């Protein structure tokens, strides 16, 4: 267990990550943290304070930083590359060749993903990162949902051998899990049970999926909510079980509907238990300036949209059963 007591209830995921990393610094003496002039934004200023000698400053030069992480890993260290998600996109090819192709034990931790970035606007909002990193062979892709899970996931990626891309988050995060929450790479969990539809979500969308389940409960629709913090490798067994038990799905993510969680779920179910799926996410658009909640509403990511997608999925399920 890392030290969840360090993490305040209202902490953002980036703060939870930074604080946990700092608390794990002594236990993992091989960890080095790479920064490109935004330690205050990514949360690793906490690590800089506790372990200044293991903080490596690369300046505003993300491509150099990403490939250098491969070199650091080659010497036996565990490099943690930190920058905003959108600037990880800038260095995808370096991550591909010098981290994944070479199978280096390096971790890429990306803050400021998705519309959650808010007022900086469309140029700064990475809605493509899960797709890009998921497409790289051997890359594990993780997007935790709350500070407690972020804390667990931070330990998990340090214990795990191999390249990882992990999203944190900018906004204050709603607490979903208790400090006894167990995060395991590759495993989703049912965070609320239901029998009519399964909502599979990651990151900020898990809290919204739970709100959607409340809305649906008012209509006597029983929605199951799955927190799928590992997008790759996806939990095929859990998805197949949910397909058998609920017969239809909604996916929800702060990402383009193409290539992220929704695609991963669809790929899995298409091969095991084909059934209706509705996708909640940004519909192949770029973001814009605005506050995160306003943007979520504007782009259709809030609870009422998830609830509507659930009604649509259930209707499709009923129709296909009638036909069948």
């Amino acid at each position, binding site marked *: 267990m890392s030290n969840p007591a360090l993490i305040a209830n209202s902490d953002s995921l980036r703060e939870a990550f930074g604080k946990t990393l700092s608390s794990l610094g002594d236990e993992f003496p091989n960890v080095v943290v790479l920064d490109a002039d935004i*330690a*205050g934004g990514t949360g690793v200023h906490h690590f800089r304070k506790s372990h200044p000698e293991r903080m490596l400053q690369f*300046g*505003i*030069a993300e491509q150099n930083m990403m490939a250098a992480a491969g070199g650091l890993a080659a010497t036996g260290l565990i490099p943690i590359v930190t920058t905003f998600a959108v600037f990880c996109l800038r260095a995808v090819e370096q991550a591909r060749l010098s981290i994944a192709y070479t199978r280096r034990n390096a971790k890429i931790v990306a803050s400021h993903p998705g519309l959650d970035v808010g007022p900086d606007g*469309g140029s700064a909002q990475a809605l493509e990162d899960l797709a890009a990193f998921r497409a790289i062979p051997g890359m594990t892709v993780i997007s935790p949902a709350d500070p407690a899970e972020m804390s667990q996931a931070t330990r998990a990626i340090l214990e795990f051998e191999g390249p990882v891309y992990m999203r944190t988050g900018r906004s204050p995060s709603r607490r979903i899990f208790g400090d006894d929450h167990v995060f395991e790479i590759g495993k989703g969990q049912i965070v609320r049970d239901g029998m009519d539809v399964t909502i599979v979500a990651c990151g900020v969308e898990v809290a919204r999926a739970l709100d959607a389940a409340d809305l649906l409960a008012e209509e006597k629709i029983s929605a199951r909510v799955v927190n799928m913090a590992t997008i790759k490798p996806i939990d095929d067994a859990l998805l197949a079980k949910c397909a058998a038990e609920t017969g239809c799905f909604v996916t929800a993510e702060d990402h383009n509907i193409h290539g992220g969680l929704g695609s991963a779920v669809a790929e899995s179910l298409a091969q095991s238990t084909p059934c209706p799926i509705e996708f909640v996410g940004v519909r192949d658009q770029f973001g814009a*300036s605005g506050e995160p909640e306003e943007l979520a509403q504007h782009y259709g990511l809030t609870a009422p949209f998830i609830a509507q997608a659930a009604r649509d999925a259930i209707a499709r399920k009923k129709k296909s059963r009638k036909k069948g």
Partner: protein
Amino acid sequence: MASTMRSVIEEAPPPAAQDLEKQLALAANFTRKHAIASIYHAGSGHPGGALSCADLLACLFGAELNFWPNAIDEPHRDRFVLSKGHAAPALYAVAAHYGFCDAKAALSLRKLNSKFQGHPHVLDLPWVETSTGSLGQGFSVALGMAMGLKLQQSKARVYAMLGDGELQEGEVWEAAMCAAHHRLDNLCVVIDYNKLQSDNLNSAIMRLEPLAAKWRAFDWAIAEIDGHDIPEILRTFRRAGATHGRPSVVIANTVKGKGVKYMENIPTWHGSVKLSREQAEDALRQLGARGDEIAELLNV
């Protein structure tokens, strides 16, 4: 100074040098005040680097660029690219001062459905030449524009404004080598050399010096100037425009947060800051605004 297309609109006879300098100083002051007001309304933004480049922007828009609000699609217009896109509030303000957009509308900075996003976007604002916000890329796009114009025998010039921290991007030096190789004497880079970046001093994050020597080694024509001295800025741009066979770089020494004492040279005023009403009023007062004007800027 580009002269070929000056006739796009009917021009008044050129003002005496001193009048022009006075006008530009007013434009720079307008830019600072409006940048502060818009960041106040937005509740976030990057004031330090907006204030440091205001005099340079005023000289570009008010004297140097052959670029006019009624001819933003003119193929032979000069191009300006704000490669340090986070200084958008200053760009919006100077552009408003020179009639490219509405100053009131620009106060909707960073709000949902506003065309004035946190970083400039060409699809929102047609007078913006390209979308920026990811450091380094604006320079490469400006380089492409300079190449394209040259290929098409245009006399138009291209200006790109870069932050000093931005110079740490490898892409900047790829573009620098490329521009010199292709002898792009229609390209001028302006460096807002305020010595600070996001987290700290350049010298603490990633050393840039010897900076002029680096550009010299890349075979650029160099000028090192005071980026707040309007006559010197004007003279330098004129010389850059007359340079043949090489691209020009203007290393403009500036003060981050210039004009607002509590921001000057303080790294934390780089970005992600919320200005309180008191701070905004204080800043505007330091920039010479009086009661009515302050109320007008802050009470929208």
